[in-house]
């Protein structure tokens, strides 16, 4: 089958785009607003991805790689090749994208039913899938960057799907602009690499790095530049502000883009270009990732909006992955990306299911003021929504890092890598602290979410009778993804729940960095292996600590949450208000910026143009007045009119000769002629 992979990839790439085009132009006129077009396109994509996946498993070759390129731009010297790079990472990522995308499509059938822009919604999903696959398949920086931006646009469009709400429109814009900040870094990184190496292809760039065409500070800067792009897309501190706001979009979109795939693009890209990160750049990556993991988790603890909790949880988990890239265990990062995509998408679908139920219940009560996403209005949904509850529980266990579930394996791999890194670089002890701290917090806030939503007494008892389980289109994806959160799917053909050893680790093997002087991948893996058990026991311990705390506070009510709030006053406020990031950005970044823009516009129009440029006009005007005066009074009145007056006088004298009789004139002429000749003759 491998010989067909390129054709498959082409289909995988362009089918969703075709669906997008069809939906945009014909969507509203098709039966059922054309949702079947999108579903069938994405379905075929999924099938093709699965065929590729199956082929990969059957050949079981960790070194598999296939590349195809074509010349896109050729001006003689300057040329750009675009193409596909298909290896095991690509195939796994394709499956993730196709799978989550298919689930989202199916989930949306019910969730978005009756929406005024139903066909438009599916169109944008198609555009997103296309551009996401573009990132995944790229074998060069240019097409990756292009898809990167297109992903940003589809995110903009989908977040702003309900653009009548100002918050949604703002969130879309914020997402796009924040991403653009990262993209600028990405682009500068691309330019640095291209200038040094003369190619955009990953393989050429790696080769160039290996032979030292670019090294030292420049290489670090290029790496940081590329990573800036990843920070934007993966919502890392300090560019994390857009992702929580992005929850204004429809929940299935949040599951697809802002949990599983699009935000993971940053991680995917870091994994792809890992071989060119210099040690210094990696350190930056590690600290940003580690800090984000802890920082976002600390915000998630106090949020009351169910989607906001999940959003910050996503930021935190992405921080984990980035941390893993930074500490060198990038395969672990990719592993976590894979498992996280499944359980986080599932959590979002679960929250979507809850919100859907709340929404309908509130709708029935004609209550439009209560926020259907606020967990303080929920509670006791366990019996009413059993499927949602159980599937979410599985995912929560996975994300908390409880053994037997997928998250445990991947998180453990990351923590092991981080710990090993700290063991060999004791100066960076903070990194594992970030990691384990975030793990404890994750367990705590996730169970807080579960308890507040599903356990305890209903906070709004009048609603509870109208809360119903969601229909099959929504529970189907829930069940599917929940089952994919079980460890067994990742460790086959082995069945050891405490080791991540399985098809994934066999097929995705870390390669050496191309930066001269880096630690070989083999050595990093050995270090991580040694740290494995320490990390595992610690992580199980912190996870259970977090869970126990949540049980005591929110289930058993041994401690009162209110008292905690009081004793941690300032800290609570900060966390509750997301450390005032939005406010401070607004105050110290956006507002000064707008003021600058207004100043510049004022300078340009009201000062420069009005006084300087028009000043020329005024000066000329004044000058012309002065010369005009001189002209009129001096030359015109004096010289010209003076001549005129003299002529007038003479004319008065000579006019007497004018008889008006032609014959007189003729006589004068003849006489004059004769007189002239006489004068001439003598």
């Amino acid at each position, binding site marked *: 089958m491998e010989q067909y992979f390129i054709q498959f990839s082409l289909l995988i790439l362009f089918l969703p785009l075709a669906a997008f085009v069809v939906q945009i132009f014909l969507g509203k006129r098709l039966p059922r607003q054309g949702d079947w077009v999108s579903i069938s396109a994405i379905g075929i994509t999924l099938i093709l991805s699965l065929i590729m996946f199956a082929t990969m498993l059957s050949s079981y070759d960790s070194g598999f790689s296939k590349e195809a390129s074509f010349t896109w731009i050729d001006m003689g010297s300057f040329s750009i090749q675009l193409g596909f790079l298909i290896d095991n990472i690509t195939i796994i990522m394709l499956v993730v994208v196709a799978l989550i995308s298919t689930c989202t499509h199916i989930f949306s059938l019910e969730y978005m039913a009756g929406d005024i822009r139903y066909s438009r919604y599916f169109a944008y999903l198609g555009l997103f899938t296309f551009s996401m696959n573009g990132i995944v398949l790229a074998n060069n920086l240019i097409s990756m960057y292009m898809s990167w931006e297109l992903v940003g646009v589809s995110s903009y469009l989908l977040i702003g799907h309900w653009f009548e709400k100002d918050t949604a429109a703002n969130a879309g814009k914020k997402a796009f602009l924040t991403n653009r900040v990262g993209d600028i870094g990405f682009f500068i990184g691309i330019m640095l690499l291209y200038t040094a190496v003369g190619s955009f292809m990953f393989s050429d760039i790696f080769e160039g790095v290996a032979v030292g065409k670019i090294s030292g500070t420049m290489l670090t800067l290029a790496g940081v530049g590329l990573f800036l792009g990843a920070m934007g897309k993966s919502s890392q501190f300090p560019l994390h502000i857009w992702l929580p706001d992005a929850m204004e979009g429809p929940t299935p979109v949040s599951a697809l883009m802002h949990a599983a795939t699009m935000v993971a693009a940053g991680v995917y890209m870091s994994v792809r270009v890992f071989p060119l990160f210099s040690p210094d750049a990696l350190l930056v990556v590690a600290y940003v990732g580690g800090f984000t993991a802890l920082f976002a988790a600390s915000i998630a603890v106090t949020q009351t909006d169910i989607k906001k909790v999940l959003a910050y949880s996503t930021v935190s988990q992405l921080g984990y992955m980035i941390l893993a890239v930074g500490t060198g265990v990038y395969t672990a990062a990719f592993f976590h990306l894979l498992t996280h995509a499944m359980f986080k998408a599932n959590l979002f679908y679960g929250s979507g299911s809850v919100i859907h139920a709340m929404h309908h219940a509130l709708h029935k009560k004609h209550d439009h003021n209560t926020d259907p996403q606020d967990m303080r209005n929920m509670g006791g949904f366990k019996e009413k929504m059993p499927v949602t509850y159980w599937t979410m529980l599985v995912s929560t266990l996975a994300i908390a890092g409880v053994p037997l579930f997928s998250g445990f394996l991947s998180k453990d791999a990351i923590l092991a890598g981080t710990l090993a890194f700290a063991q060999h670089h004791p100066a960076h002890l903070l990194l594992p602290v970030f990691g384990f701290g975030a793990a404890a917090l994750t367990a705590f806030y996730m169970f807080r979410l579960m308890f507040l939503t599903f356990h305890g007494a209903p906070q709004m008892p009048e609603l509870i009778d109208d809360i119903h389980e969601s229909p099959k289109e929504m529970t189907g994806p829930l069940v599917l993804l929940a089952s994919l959160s079980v460890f067994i799917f990742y460790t086959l053909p082995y069945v050891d729940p405490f080791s991540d050893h399985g098809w994934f680790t066999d097929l995705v093997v870390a390669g050496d960095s191309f930066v001269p002087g880096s630690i070989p991948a083999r050595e990093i893996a050995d270090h991580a292996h040694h740290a494995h058990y320490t990390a595992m026991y610690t992580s199980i311990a912190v996870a259970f600590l977090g869970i126990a705390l949540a049980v005591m506070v929110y289930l058993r009510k041994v401690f009162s949450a209110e008292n905690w709030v009081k004793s941690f006053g300032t800290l609570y406020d900060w966390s509750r208000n997301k450390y005032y990031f939005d406010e401070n950005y607004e105050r110290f970044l956006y507002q000064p910026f707008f003021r600058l823009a207004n100043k510049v516009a004022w300078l340009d129009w009201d000062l420069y143009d009005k006084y300087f440029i028009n000043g020329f006009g005024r000066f000329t005007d004044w000058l012309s007045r002065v010369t005009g005066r001189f002209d009129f009074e001096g030359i015109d009145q004096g010289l010209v009119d003076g001549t005129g007056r003299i002529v007038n006088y003479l004319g008065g004298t000579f006019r007497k000769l004018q008889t008006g009789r032609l014959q*007189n004139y003729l*006589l004068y002429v003849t006489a004059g002629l*004769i007189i002239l000749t006489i004068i001439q003759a003598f």
Partner: protein
Amino acid sequence: MADMVFWCIAALTVISAAFVVLNNQLLYAAIGLLFTLFGVAGLYVFLWADFIAGVQLLVYIGGILVLIIFGIMLTNQISSVRLSQTNVQQGVGAVVVTWLFIFLSMVISKTPWLIRPALEPESTTAGVGTLLLTRYLLPFEVISVLLLGALIGAAVLSREGN
């Protein structure tokens, strides 16, 4: 013989020209003009200009003169007694014109005229025709357009009730 004829014609021309400008009766003046034109035509013949002489007869006498006589007839009621007119500034005019004539005579007699030997007399019609249609084609066309314009203009101007 030829000499005598020449002088006779010259005399006829000059005398009738004087008659044209001096006679008070307009009709007589016009008759005088007729003879002057005849005389000039005769002089043309002496100058071997047969074609011009013919044209002089046809156009001047047959056309212009008839036109002038018509003009006289139309602008003076036949019943009114004299088709006459009065002159002005005759004294001054005579002096000036005499001086003019003297001056011209001096120029004519004092100028050393360059005379080219004449060829045998022959008909000029063919030569004139060739020249008109070759070297002077443009003036020829222009003058014909002018003539046409003048005629149309004259017709328009003299229309009744204008």
